[in-house]
């Protein structure tokens, strides 16, 4: 039974970075995850590249395309989590995937793979509360945190969603898909404190967080942040360095500096 439980010992200043499995390649995804842990990540959101990522903005779409070109798919992405753990990653890994790939693996095989590959969490952006009852139950049975989301438009749905959350509650900062934002609506603070009223698990804010300033802002008013596009965009920028054996190390160092700058 994991529902209503936090997946973290610590309950604030959670930093949950998103990276796409296989972008730019499997080995580098592991390297990047290890650096994120080193920089203080509380968990890794590992994105499964998908043909039709309709909740994602252009940056993560592009990462999906790169990863799929490398032959990445949901099975390999899950195996990649295992490899991360083998390479020493300690923090939990949350599989971020659209619903259809999960569906196609089938319940039994999917959960076999989740367990076998030591995945601790699951986030399905297109499986809202009403459609996820069964999945939440199954996750619970398998000791997997099914991460729920609330959005600025959730209103009277917040209570129900928050009360049933597991791991942490993903609070969508603003309308729209994933991607960087210059600034946030004034109403976001009210929204977050409203959400926190109902949540027994930590509340982390995501969508658009892309600067140190944003991180600081949300560390103040919520329990943590999810950072996706800003990181993925940095990875995209570093691909030339990262994929050249001679410059890989300096690329990784650059990445580390970037993450450090984001957080401190």
């Amino acid at each position: 039974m994991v529902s209503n439980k936090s997946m973290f010992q610590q309950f604030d200043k959670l930093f949950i970075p998103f990276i796409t499995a296989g972008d730019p390649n499997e080995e580098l995804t592991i390297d990047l995850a290890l650096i994120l842990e080193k920089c203080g990540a509380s968990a890794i959101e590992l994105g499964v590249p998908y043909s039709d990522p309709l909740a994602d903005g252009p940056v993560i779409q592009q990462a999906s395309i790169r990863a799929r070109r490398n032959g990445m798919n949901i099975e390999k992405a899950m195996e990649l989590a295992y490899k991360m753990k083998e390479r020493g990653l300690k923090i939990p890994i949350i599989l971020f995937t659209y619903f259809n790939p999960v569906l196609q693996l089938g319940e039994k095989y999917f959960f076999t793979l989740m367990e076998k590959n030591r995945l601790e969490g699951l986030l399905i952006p297109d499986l809202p509360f009403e459609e996820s009852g069964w999945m939440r139950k199954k996750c619970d049975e398998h000791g997997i945190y099914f991460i729920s989301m609330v959005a600025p438009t959730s209103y009277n749905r917040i209570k129900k969603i928050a009360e049933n959350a597991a791991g942490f509650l993903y609070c969508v900062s603003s309308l729209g898909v994933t991607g960087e934002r210059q600034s946030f609506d004034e109403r976001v603070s009210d929204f977050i404190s409203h959400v926190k009223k109902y949540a027994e698990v930590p509340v982390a804010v995501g969508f658009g967080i892309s600067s140190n300033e944003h991180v600081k802002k949300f560390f103040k008013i919520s329990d943590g942040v999810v950072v996706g596009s800003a990181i993925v965009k940095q990875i995209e920028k570093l691909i030339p360095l990262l994929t050249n054996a001679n410059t890989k190390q300096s690329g990784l160092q650059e990445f580390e500096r970037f993450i450090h700058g984001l957080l401190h």
Partner: protein
Amino acid sequence: MKYPDEYGRFGEFGGKYVPETLMKPLYELEEALKDALSDSSFQQQYHQMLQKYSGRPTALTFADQLTKHVGGANIFLKREDLNHTGAHKINNAIGQALLSKRMGKKKLIAETGAGQHGVASATVAAKFGMDCKVFMGEEDIDRQRLNVFRMQLLGAEVVPVTSGNKTLKDAVNEAIRYWVQHCEDHFYLMGSAVGPHPYPMMVREFQRIIGDEAKEQFFNEFGKLPDVVIACVGGGSNAIGMFTPFLEEDVKLIGVEAGGKGVETGEHAATITKGTKGVIHGSMTYLLQNQYGEIIEPYSISAGLDYPGVGPEHAYLAKIGRVVYESVTDEEAILALETLAKTEGILAAIESAHAVAKGIEIAKTLSNEQSILICLSGRGDKDVHTLMKTKGGVENGF
């Protein structure tokens, strides 16, 4: 109608597989729709627009020459091609735009493949004084310049979609992405009976005028119902509109999917025939996908059937066996289009020609005491370019 249920499910199909952000807009839409459908003044507005603007009721034509040519059952055509803008799409666009207006939303979002739904959306946006953004894959923009121009002429903004394969499925993705960001003041005018609940139901309700009229016209003339009713199935809006009033009658219903180059070649859009269950564009249904649930780009000569999914109600009707879904190849459709043109003087959309092809095939197996009703969903003017290419053009004396 016993379904969809409160979750928008048609048996195991349907539902709302969308980002949390869209849940409230969808609930609001559901409410507004329920309210509108039970409001006689809304119904009157809708029917007035259909009649005085789009020219409904559309004719029910006895295809006497085709019947004679084929030999067998009497073939009747429900003439959705006579609608304003040339296809059944306008029925739905009018309904949704009226609803949008009623909800106080004056900005429309729509997706389009070949441009038919885009033109219908741009049309109603103009008539209701609304803004309209039409998302369209860059590939499709290239292939359908005339329709792009038509939309612009009508005052709509055509937004090129460069993600994915740059075709219809990606246009839907992009439209949904835009909607997620602007759901507070925008209305997403979906073009077929697909997408998350309440779209499949809403589109059905705004398209059932096709079947309601046809049933009444046929009954008034012959005192009985046709034996077989046939419609083509892309997303499934014309088909569900035609079938709905016949579902509880003793009438054989056949949905016709695009067989492309043949369902065995892999190059087709025969979603029910060859697809598997999964989620696409917010709905549980049949779709064309690989083992990892990644969507496979479909193929059909007809842009309007070239969609990898299908409305969830069709998935359900297929599953329970109430409707039979079969497929017709490009070649068979073109042949039927030519036959219909030469015998009846009607240039059908290639989409609709799929239904005609199946109708011809079935008619041969029936007696002249029996009748087949085919939904002629649209006219073929938009397809003349494609046909010319296929047939080698004027130069070849065709």
